[in-house]
């Protein structure tokens, strides 16, 4: 137990120290983790033996990551990607495999080993690339989207690779070790090998159908049930249960767990619980992915490296160059231009974490001899090591060359309005939302009441279950991309806290907050709200106007009185707010404030009476000239005209 704690502590210390330093130096968190792993592993020798076990565990980080990626992608978005997915991804995997295989055969490998090496290097690192894209905000660019389609295709292709590799088994390696199929995938292999081919197919299809159907029909009642308990940790547990369950099911039938959870994510992308789910599993993703990168660093086998330093270095550079050239060519073929093509080229030129999986799997299945596998693992690891460097190259050399011309091009295009996050979809928020959506604005609506969210969904209003006062929920709801936030929740204190937090963390976001009353409105303004309105103010004004109309006032005059009332309110609101700010008693309602308030009342009274008491001379509006003026108008007009000429 003590040893366990000690190891965990060492890993965490390495991460805590290395990652912030790496980010400060502009290297990105991935390189930070890799360096941390290098330090505690090969350099200091603090960890080592358990790396492989931890690596299996940490690969779960990739699984969670693909679940999150899936959550971001609606089925329709996935369908829209199909050409890039199949075309770009298919060509990349196919051509890279063939070219690398050819290279390996030219270096004297037999065809089956060469093919396996080709397959291993056809893959890129989903973990590094997506993590870096997210940190740099590149997901939505054309290059980012294209790279993502390629990665997705690779993850699908892994399934077929895992099926293909056992067929390449070398007779001499099989006879060398007959003791078993190894661990890892053996459970699945045993279970499935007892089935005939058609039954295996059915089981695989059944598993996929199960994930999709359960995600579609069972997840909602389950989440609703859990959410009604109001316990956040239960929700987190449910989310983890879901991801782990799917991963287990997929491993059992021999599919990629990452692909299974990705599918589940896509199915749940439309769910009202999406943002809550994201924020529940995201911390796990971050930690486990970090762990994964550390293990890659820690897993460097120093003795093998020393013996084969030149081979490893040459192969690593060779792989990166070959992949980059192929990617650039394929990108060109698909009409990806400029900085986007560079992004695709540089971001996908490394080998990936599934490379490790394939290497181990190939050894287990007697396809690769162990010495070759050790060298291949090193090449995979080092190519991943160099990826952050390629991203830095992209950032510092490539991007500056393109941003200048792009800015000039887009000078006349107005900035696209960001999304509007609306907290609270009750009687107030839904009217705001309806008006915005009807006018083509993108809104993200959050509410903590599952019944309300469900009701909104039933009337085709897209709403999500989630507590908007929680920073992580706001984060997954995309507050970084938002330009505006409307707060219409019923808790007064929470509203104040939210305004304070959002204004502090995202100063550029306009906050429109609904206040309970005047005092609440001032407090909201004080903590940074850009616009506040008391929830009853405008409807009360309408109701008052209706009462005037009912009492026999002319409708047009009623509108004028209403406008006059509103104008005075608006003008006086500022001085009242100043008085409220000045109040030192802490009660915010001192004598000065009360006096001002009564002045306001008086002014409104005067404005309402004005027309009736003092004739037209001081009143404003559609007033005729004084009586008698019209008796001699032409004379006066002529006088002026004469003077003008």
């Amino acid at each position, binding site marked *: 137990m003590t040893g366990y704690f000690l190891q965990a502590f060492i890993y965490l210390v390495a991460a805590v120290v290395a990652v912030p330093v790496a980010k400060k130096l502009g290297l990105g968190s991935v390189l930070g983790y890799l360096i941390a792993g290098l330090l505690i592993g090969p350099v200091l020798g603090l960890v080592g033996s358990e790396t492989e076990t931890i690596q299996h565990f940490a690969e779960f980080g990739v699984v969670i990551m693909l679940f999150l990626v899936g959550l971001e992608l609606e089925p329709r978005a996935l369908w829209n990607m199909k050409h890039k997915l199949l075309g770009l991804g298919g060509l990349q995997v196919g051509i890279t495999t063939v070219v690398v295989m050819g290279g390996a055969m030219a270096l004297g490998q037999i065809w089956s080993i060469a093919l396996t090496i080709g397959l291993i290097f056809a893959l890129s690192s989903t973990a590094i690339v997506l993590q870096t894209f997210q940190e740099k905000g590149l997901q939505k660019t054309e290059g980012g989207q294209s790279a993502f389609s390629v990665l997705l295709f690779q993850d699908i292709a892994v399934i077929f690779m895992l099926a293909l590799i056992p067929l390449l088994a070398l007779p001499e390696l099989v006879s060398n070790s007959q003791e078993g199929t190894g661990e890892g995938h053996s459970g699945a292999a045993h279970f499935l090998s007892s089935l005939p081919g058609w039954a295996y197919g059915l089981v695989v299809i059944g598993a996929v159908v199960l994930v999709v159907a359960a995600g579609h029909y069972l997840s909602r009642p389950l989440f609703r049930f859990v959410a009604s308990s109001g316990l956040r940790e239960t929700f987190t547990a449910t989310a983890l249960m879901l991801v782990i369950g799917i991963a287990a099911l997929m491993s059992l039938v021999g599919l990629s767990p990452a692909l299974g959870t990705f599918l589940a994510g896509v199915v749940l992308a439309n769910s009202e619980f999406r943002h809550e789910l994201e924020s529940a599993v995201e911390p796990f993703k971050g930690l486990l992915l970090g762990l994964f990168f550390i293990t890659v660093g820690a897993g460097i086998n120093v003795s093998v490296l020393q013996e084969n330093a030149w081979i490893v270095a040459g192969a690593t550079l060779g792989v990166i160059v070959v992949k980059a050239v192929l990617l650039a060519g394929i990108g060109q073929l698909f009409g990806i231009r400029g900085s986007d093509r560079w992004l695709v080229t540089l971001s996908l030129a490394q080998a990936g974490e599934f490379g490790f999986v394939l290497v181990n799997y190939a050894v287990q299945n007697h396809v690769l001899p162990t010495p070759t596998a050790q060298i291949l693992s090193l090449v995979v690891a080092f190519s991943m090591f160099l990826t952050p460097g390629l991203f830095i190259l992209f950032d510092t050399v490539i991007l500056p060359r393109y941003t200048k011309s792009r800015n000039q091009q887009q000078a006349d295009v107005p900035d696209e309005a960001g999304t509007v996050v609306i907290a609270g979809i009750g009687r107030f928020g839904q009217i705001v939302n309806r008006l915005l959506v009807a006018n083509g604005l993108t809104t993200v609506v959050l509410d903590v009441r599952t019944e309300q969210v469900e009701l909104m969904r039933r009337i085709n209003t897209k709403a999500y279950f989630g507590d908007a006062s929680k920073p992580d929920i706001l984060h997954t709801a995309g507050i970084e991309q938002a330009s505006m936030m409307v707060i219409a929740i019923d808790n007064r204190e929470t509203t104040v806290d939210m305004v304070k937090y959002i204004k502090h963390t995202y100063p550029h976001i306009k906050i429109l907050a609904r206040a309970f009353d005047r005092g609440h409105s001032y407090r909201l303004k004080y903590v940074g709200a850009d616009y506040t309105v008391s929830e009853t103010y405008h409807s009360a004004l309408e109701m008052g106007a209706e009462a005037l109309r009912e009492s026999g006032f002319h409708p047009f005059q009623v509108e004028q009185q209403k*406008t006059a009332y509103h*104008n005075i309110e608006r003008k006086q609101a500022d001085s009242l707010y100043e008085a409220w700010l000045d109040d030192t008693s802490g009660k915010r309602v001192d004598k000065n404030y009360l006096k001002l308030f009564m002045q306001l009342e008086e002014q409104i009274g005067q404005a309402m009476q004005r027309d009736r008491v003092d004739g037209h001379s001081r009143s*404003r*509006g*559609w*007033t005729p*000239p*004084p009586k008698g*003026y019209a008796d001699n*108008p032409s004379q*006066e*007009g002529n006088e*002026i*005209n004469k*003077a*003008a000429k």
Partner: protein
Amino acid sequence: MPDNVNQRVLVLFAHPSQARSEVNMPLYMDACRVPGVTAVDLYSEYPTFNIDIDKEQQRLLEHDVVLFQFPLYWYSTPSILKEWQDLVLEYGFAYGHDGHALKDKLFLCALSAGGQADAYQTDGYNHFTIRQLLQPLEQMANLTGMRYLPPLALFGSRTAKEEDRISRHRSRYKRLLEALVAGNIDYAIAASLPKINQYWPDSQEDC
């Protein structure tokens, strides 16, 4: 004759349907960019027609030239300009006893009309020239002591874009605004024209 250079020009722009505007929006954007011109989008500033009388009167006091820019609606201005007149040009400010605030300022209109130029003739189907139709505004200028200039007009505005006539009109408008700012328009000559388009002979052809 010009009083002095660097006249301050106030453009009061009224267009209730800006999303559909093909002629007036570009002109308004141009006006915003001419130094010495204050361009005000009335429908944007007073979307509920709740005109701030004090503010508008203050604006008038601060400028030497007042220009209404609008698309012609029923042989007159869009309603907010009428509302602006009704409220801002008060007795005692713009006319009547002690109402001399606008005295000697220049006043003119820049308008677009859907009908073709030949419709705005005595024998055309609109029966009156554009200067005749704008007589209420001319008399408003007279009564308030302003010096009236004939309008800058673009006819056939619904097809101006297709016929590629907008850019020429824009440069004409820009030239007019710059001349107003510089104060180098010969008032006697300009005031006698049916349209100020003809003040610069080379731009007479299409209007």
